[in-house]
């Protein structure tokens, strides 16, 4: 029984992202939330201590409860329904937290980026691009509007596919796409704990300022095809050539 419908796949194909709220059960969410809280310098019962708390990565992605949100749930299988069965390398997510600022002057993200690009501090080797196929963002806390939500620019994956047919993957400095793409209105992903956003690896995205009460507790996985090294420089006319579930 597949997890994604034809409508889900069509939505992903058109917009470059897909949101589902029913793939994780309470145990998955609770275990991941507990693991994160155990590593935070904040009182779980006192929201005042959540403002500007830390650390941003309170638990490694290798923690069983964190990895389990993708690999022990239907999430990985759903991602494979997009790319093709047995096509993706297994992989768990890592925590990406945005702490409340305590401020109220929220503003939309000023510009998005593509992942995998070198900056002097992010560990990506200079002159390389860390491509992947499916991004997965999982909320393990309720995220309301203006709460630091993961933000996407719908359709930007199609612009990227067009662009890279006649440009080097390295031509976007630091992954910053502001001057490269004609970006539409952004969408801030919100939803209850357990919300899962699948996004195309070349969808422009960003974080945003957290003016809400909750810590934005997101887990983000980047899943690549097993044959990535054989196809990482391919930019076919049909951008879905390597997405057997989408064709």
């Amino acid at each position: 029984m597949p997890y994604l419908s034809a409508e889900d796949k069509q939505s992903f194909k058109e917009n470059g992202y897909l949101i589902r709220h029913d793939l994780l059960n309470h145990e998955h969410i609770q275990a991941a939330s507990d693991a994160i809280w155990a590593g935070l310098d904040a009182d779980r019962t006192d929201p005042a201590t959540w403002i500007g708390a830390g650390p941003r990565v309170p638990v490694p992605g290798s923690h069983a409860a964190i990895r389990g949100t993708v690999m022990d749930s239907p999430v990985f299988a759903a991602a494979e329904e997009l790319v093709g069965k047995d096509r993706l390398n297994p992989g768990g997510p890592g925590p990406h937290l945005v702490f409340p600022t305590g401020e109220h002057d929220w503003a939309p993200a000023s510009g998005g980026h593509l992942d995998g690009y070198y900056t002097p501090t992010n560990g990506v080797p200079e002159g390389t691009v860390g491509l992947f196929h499916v991004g997965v963002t999982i909320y393990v806390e309720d995220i309301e509007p203006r709460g630091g939500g993961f933000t996407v620019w719908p359709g930007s994956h199609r612009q990227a596919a067009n662009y890279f047919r006649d440009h080097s993957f390295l031509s976007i400095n630091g992954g910053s796409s502001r001057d490269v793409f004609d970006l539409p209105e952004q969408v801030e992903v919100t939803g209850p704990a357990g919300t899962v956003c699948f996004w195309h690896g070349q969808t422009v995205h960003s974080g945003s300022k957290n003016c809400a009460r909750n810590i934005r507790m997101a887990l983000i996985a980047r899943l690549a095809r097993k044959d990535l090294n054989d196809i990482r420089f391919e930019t076919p006319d049909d951008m879905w050539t390597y997405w057997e579930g989408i064709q």
Partner: protein
Amino acid sequence: MAGHVMAGNLTMNCVLSAAAEPELELAALLAAAQQDEFGAIELFRHRTSSCVVRDNLSVRDIRNALAASQVKLAAYEIRPLTGRKADSDERNLPYNLRQLEWDTHLGRALGIQTISVRSGTTSSQEQAQEARADLVEGLGQLVERIPDVTFAVGPAVDSVLQTAADFDELLSGIDGVGVILDVAPLRAAAVDLAAFARDWAQQVSLVRLDDGDVPVDEIADALTAADFNGPIVLESRDADLRQRVQTRFG
């Protein structure tokens, strides 16, 4: 491969290096190759205007340009194996190897099966010791991780791999790695080019010749005896050099 001329028991693969015209972008380099009737070129990941990562060029653009010109890509050099981060000079072999793997997969996407690489330059005795260790370890890891290509390592000025003794020390114990007989840096280190050709003929994967003092006859004899059939890359458009190479190798 284009540019082959079978003669005797040696296959002639004369290749124009982008280093011969470092200011030319890819289209102009291909035009130069056509003009000089080269069937193949050598490109670099870096250091020439025709390098393969120009902003306005995708891999498919490069493939299309090669196909349209009917000039093959016969040789490709990736960034140097330094064992260090270029932006901070910090020793970090895994970081450098990830760069070289990326460069190598780009070469694979262009259809290249022999990947050229050099050691990085060194500025101190301590760095040189680290560079030697990283060169041996790094080559070993690359060979293991990307088994469907052959890595060929060549000399570079001011690097830990320049003299005959450097080759003896560093490469004798590594299996599955080819050698680039690159006359310019070898000559700069006062290496006996004919002797080097004889000593390493069985492992030579690629030859780079310039228009300096090159013992073409002796090199050709050594490589012929070893049944060499790799690319002979010319780093000059000098007609005399081309004629000498074609006469002796062809």
